[in-house]
């Protein structure tokens, strides 16, 4: 672990801060899974994990390896790009599957009709 000793203090502080921040945001996303009541609310929890959580950890990795190896290490951008491209598709798939399976809504058509009514149904009363 000589590499860590070679890290200058400003880089160590930056990397540690970003790692702790990213870890906290990731934890917060899972706390959201635990605390929120219905499925439709819970799907929003992991969204902060995939954006800011991975972002902070990837930037920390970029800073660490750039300083340690004294050359720009930026290929973590690819991880970020692929996560950002695939995660929205997954969340859309899960959301649509939930809508079509939900016995209360009975398919997207029902939800669509209900939302046009004067008193749209709220999905946070039961769960």
């Amino acid at each position, binding site marked *: 672990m000589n590499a860590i000793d070679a890290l200058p203090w400003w880089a160590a502080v930056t990397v540690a801060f970003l790692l702790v921040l990213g870890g906290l945001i990731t934890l917060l996303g899972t706390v959201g899974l635990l605390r929120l009541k219905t499925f439709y609310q819970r799907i929003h929890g992991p*969204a902060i994990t995939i954006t800011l959580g991975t972002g902070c950890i990837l930037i920390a990795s970029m800073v660490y390896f750039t300083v340690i190896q004294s050359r720009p290490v930026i290929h973590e951008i690819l991880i970020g790009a692929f996560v950002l491209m695939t995660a929205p598709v997954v969340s859309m798939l899960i*959301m649509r599957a939930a809508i079509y399976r939900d016995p209360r809504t009975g398919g997207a058509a029902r939800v669509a009709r209900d939302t046009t009514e004067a008193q749209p149904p709220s999905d946070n009363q039961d769960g």
Partner: protein
Amino acid sequence: MRRWFPSPMLSIGLLLMWLMLNQSLALAHWMLGGVLAIVAPVLARPLQPHGYARIARPLALFRLLGMSAIEIVRSCFNVSQIILFRRADGVNSQFIRIPLDLHSPHGLALLSCLINMTPGTVWVDLLPDRHELLLHVFDLHDERWWVETIKTRYERPIIELFEAPPATGQGGKA
């Protein structure tokens, strides 16, 4: 030219990806990446039912991505705040409907990715009968504000991006 580079943006992206993956700027990697950038789009073209997207103004794309990055960070903090401090019963989650003018399939794909990347909103479905977007909002405070925001800040730049040359028509078939 167009036969060998059906999508210049895709080719440049593949070349950059190859160089980044190998973390090298050696001549051999430029050549391998160049081969990949020419061959992959040509081979993958039959897989694209609508052809490759024609992006009229790449700069506008980057401006849109930058704007949504700021929006992502801001709504990350909003959602974290709600998860931490609000009682779960007090969160007003709703489905809302937004009428869309955007018809380009590539534009719709980009819009759905941007909306789903932003914490707090999930694209549910595109209702075919009146071309409306069904959107789930984590904490709804003002439905009209959401419709305005999606239409002016996301949809209009995307329409300008993909549908600027009217000669190619909707879908931008190459």
